[in-house]
């Protein structure tokens, strides 16, 4: 039984899962919402003035006011603490985001400058184990490619981009270089995964490699490179496989089978090869 048949069966039969009634109790719910909001508003007014708000409707006491709780006096302290925690969280997120953007920017810069080879898509030291061996093999294969294929240099564009002579639409050329480079690296990673034994667990280095790849994939999806519908579809399928890969627990064979099925259904590897080659 194919995946498609099963998905059709699911979509058909799952309609019977907790079927909601055709009639929605609009009025009853609306009355409750209105009463609750009125009670809340009355509570807030009482907290400020010490007495009920003049115009506030009386609502039978079903909803205890939040302001009656003794924790109110700590509310400002809790609020400040929450703001502080939120601020730290946003700061950390921004730093991580900046780091990812910086990494992508450096890829663009190195591709555009054409003076230095792009950094290897692989960690300096490949991890031990089956995936590590497969990774080293893939690394050597990629490194043996012509520099044009690996670095995706486009000399005629490079000079124009470097000297600022590009027209308004031409930054897309730089994006194409970056995305091809990215797809080439993704192809290497997916090849490593596909070639590894089904029960091989992903080691930390490969995991980091996949996480970096996922970050860059998402950045590309949000960039002009993601505006091309064919490339977007390819990046989205790549993103799905990367997420499946990163969510896999240890060497779980069934989860690996799921990844293999996605690879087969989406024909990801061959599409990555075509995309990396600019076809």
């Amino acid at each position, binding site marked *: 039984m194919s995946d498609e048949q099963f998905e059709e069966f699911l979509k058909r*039969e*799952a309609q019977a899962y907790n079927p*909601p*009634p055709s009639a*929605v109790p*609009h009025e009853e*719910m609306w009355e409750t919402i209105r009463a609750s*909001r009125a009670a809340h508003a009355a509570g807030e007014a009482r907290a400020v003035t010490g007495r009920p708000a003049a115009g506030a409707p009386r609502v039978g006491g079903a909803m205890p006011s939040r302001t009656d709780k003794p924790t109110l006096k700590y509310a400002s302290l809790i609020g400040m603490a929450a703001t502080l925690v939120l601020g730290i969280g946003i700061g950390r997120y921004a730093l991580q985001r900046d780091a990812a953007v910086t990494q992508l920017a450096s890829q663009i810069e190195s591709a555009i400058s054409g003076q230095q080879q792009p950094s290897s898509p692989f960690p300096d030291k490949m991890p031990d184990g089956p995936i590590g061996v497969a990774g080293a093999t893939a690394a050597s294969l990629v490194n043996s490619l012509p520099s044009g294929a690996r670095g995706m240099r486009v000399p005629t564009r490079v000079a124009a981009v470097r000297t600022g002579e590009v027209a308004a639409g031409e930054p897309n050329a730089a994006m194409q270089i970056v995305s091809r480079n990215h797809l080439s690296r993704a192809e290497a990673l997916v090849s490593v995964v596909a070639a590894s034994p089904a029960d091989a667990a992903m080691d930390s280095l490969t995991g980091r490699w996949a996480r970096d790849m996922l970050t860059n994939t998402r950045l590309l999806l949000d960039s002009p490179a993601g505006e091309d519908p064919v490339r977007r579809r390819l990046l*989205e399928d790549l993103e799905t496989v990367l997420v499946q890969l990163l969510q896999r627990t240890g060497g779980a064979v069934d989860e690996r089978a799921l990844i293999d099925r*996605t690879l087969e259904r989406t024909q990801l590897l061959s599409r990555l090869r075509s995309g990396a080659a600019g076809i």
Partner: protein
Amino acid sequence: MTDAQLIAEVLRGDPRAERQLYDAHVDRIYRLAWRMAGDETLARDFTQDTFIRAFDKLGDFRGDSSLSTWLHSIATSVILNGLKKVQRIHGREIGGDELPEVMIPVRDAEPDLKLRLRRAIEGLPDGYRTVFVMHDVEGFTHEEIGAALGIQVGTSKAQLSRARAKLRDQLSDFAGEWAS
């Protein structure tokens, strides 16, 4: 009236605008709550709580997403937190040992495929079940699910893929009946 105009009217305190906002979105939120909870009282509570919170926080809405997406993000949060509370209470009442029963396939005892499918869906982890119900049952797109749940589109797709795989495993002994 656009979302922005409607919100402005609600923030000015226009009761008709409040009702208009409610009418425009209540059906879809109620349906989702029903699908997730499978219980009328809970579906009502979750829907009401969603709108109460939404009206409270409407002033914070910045328009980064559509109003519908924003409302559904509140709804999914209310529903999932509410269901967790219910499960905790239910677990205390009946004892935790009984909970895993829904995960065990019993071919002879449960010959009905639909019942088995229902049980298999119930047995999915919360995250998988939410994405599955939203996508395969209620027809949300991955973009809508991602925005509502605060996850990436790829994560939503991966969760759905895993949910389907788990359901397929759970129903493997019915394989011949899927296509019928």
